[in-house]
């Protein structure tokens, strides 16, 4: 429940602003000049702010489309990502967003049209290359759909650009928008998943895994390409059994022809980010694990990482070819 909304004066009349505000009639509304006045300022307490995040509606002025970090995508030549929103309504304990900004407030950029213009330019500038655009790196792509209609706008845009691929990454089961649309052949709806008992502990405020699996199967059955993102892989007692069960449960009755790809990746953080997040949650067992530091990277270490990667890969190969299985390494 959003109780406070800050709106940049310059976008108060933007159609998306009006739509969002109409969905939040009871929220306190305050005007601001620029979102930087209150977003990501020093002396903010992320953890307290996360209890009652405000929504900031703003206009983004530049850097609409950015190259994805290497190791992020599947097999495209070039990967890009764009973020119409910073921060997420879910509170997954491993999420890097906790260490990314000092603010937990949700920052929504309402000028979707400028994102689309910039994506069009990127497509033109990279004509001839296979491109994938990702959404859902700094937020969840679908979780706010009822308020923002972001996915609806974005899917309409990419429908007109069949030469590129678009991945909408989410944990949300808010799939009505998608089910009401004809499937778009160059759009992939990718779900992040962990074994149920892992998600019950770590994926706070996110939909339960069985609901996510139901949503995946519904979408695949209705013709949408779906992706599975087993990322990050979480090490725990009986992880083999848990991941085998998860994969088995997903694959049962899944319209496998509409499974675009499965990727998996280790739990890794830049050292500074890990320290920030661990300090936020000293009571969290995830951060009490004896992680290994290699240079500026904190992880479970190569032994556990490799063991998990090999096992997951072997499990997945029982159901689909290696050409649809990818290991992410960022």
């Amino acid at each position, binding site marked *: 429940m959003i109780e406070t909304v800050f709106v940049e004066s310059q976008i108060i009349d933007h159609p998306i602003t009006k739509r969002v505000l109409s969905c939040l009639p009871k929220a306190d509304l305050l005007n601001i000049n620029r979102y930087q006045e209150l977003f990501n300022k020093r*002396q903010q307490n992320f953890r307290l702010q996360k209890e009652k995040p405000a929504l900031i509606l703003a206009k983004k002025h530049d850097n609409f489309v950015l190259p994805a970090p290497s190791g992020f995508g599947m097999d495209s030549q070039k990967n890009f990502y764009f973020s119409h929103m910073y921060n997420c309504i879910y509170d997954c304990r491993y999420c890097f967003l906790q260490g990314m900004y000092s603010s937990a407030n949700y920052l929504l950029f309402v000028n979707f049209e400028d994102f689309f213009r910039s994506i069009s330019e990127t497509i033109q500038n990279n004509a001839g290359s296979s491109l994938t655009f990702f959404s859902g790196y700094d937020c969840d792509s679908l979780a706010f759909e009822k308020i923002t209609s972001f996915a609806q706008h974005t899917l309409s845009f990419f429908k007109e650009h069949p030469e590129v691929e678009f991945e909408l990454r989410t944990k949300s089961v808010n799939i009505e928008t998608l089910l009401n649309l004809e499937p778009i052949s160059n759009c992939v709806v990718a779900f992040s998943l962990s074994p149920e008992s892992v998600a019950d502990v770590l994926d706070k405020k996110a939909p339960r895994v069985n609901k996510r699996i139901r949503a995946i199967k519904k979408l695949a059955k209705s013709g949408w390409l779906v992706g599975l993102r087993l990322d990050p892989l979480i090490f725990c007692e009986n992880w083999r059994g848990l991941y085998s069960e998860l994969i088995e449960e997903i694959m049962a009755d899944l319209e496998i022809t509409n499974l675009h790809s499965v990727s998996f990746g280790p739990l890794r953080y830049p050292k500074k980010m890990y320290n920030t997040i661990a300090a936020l949650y000293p009571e969290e067992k995830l951060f009490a694990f*004896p992680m290994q530091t290699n240079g500026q990277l904190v992880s479970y270490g190569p032994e556990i990482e490799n063991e998990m990667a090999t096992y997951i890969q072997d499990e997945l190969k029982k159901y689909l070819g290696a050409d649809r299985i990818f290991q992410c390494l960022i």
Partner: protein
Amino acid sequence: MNNTNREFKFFWVVALRSEANALIKKFNLKSFSNHCNFPIYINRKNGHALVISGVGSIKSAVATMYLNKTFNPGQVVAWINIGIAGHFQGPVGTLFQVIKVVNNDNGKSFFPGLRFPKLAKAAELYTVSSPENEFTLPVLYDMEAAGFCEIAPSLSCNELTFVLKIVSDTSEQSQSLITKKMIADLFNKNSDMIDNLLQAVVKIVDRERARLGDPIEMDGIMCSLHFTETNRLRFRKIYKKWWCLFPNKSLADRAKKASSAHDLMQSMELDIATEAQTWKLK
């Protein structure tokens, strides 16, 4: 180890003696000092400390720093600026939680406090350098909050910095009508609301102290063994992990038997590594 004073949970910064009197009475505060024209009142039992800043943004900022310097309360305390304010509309007597403060002199804005929508209405406030009579904007007007907000978040955090204002005058009801008795009445009228807000705030303060504080036995252990400065930091890190995994175990006995700080830390790391073999997430 630090010398943080954890007796206090609420640090009040008020401009006027008549505003302070209402709180002094309410929280049974006693005079602590009266230096530098910043009288301080405290009650160690209920955790309140108050400074009277005088009128104006700069005085409010300086008084905030002065109160902090006097008690060194650490980062997990609530800083509250409360006082009367003008409002374009009123009604007089309404208490607002200010969620945006604008310094009218330089346009700088602040966004203090976790919001409590069920307990108080939200408002924007302009801090002006001379009394406001025009009320041209649909906001509150005071003469201190911007100075307070410039300093208080850096002493604690933005989410534990609160600005509460009670409407004392409007375009219809001139500030010339404000008397000491009226201020006392305005505070009395809002006494329950202030209590409710404090109850909400103290829960956050207590939770944050539990989260950020060191385990009780840690200081004792660090006194009983020789730790270099580097090892102190390392021990604190290891101990927090160890404590997270073994919240019901005590380390004190083992520390007594340990031949050195290094030995102790090594045994703790071994505990953690052993636990990692069968890692449970809960």
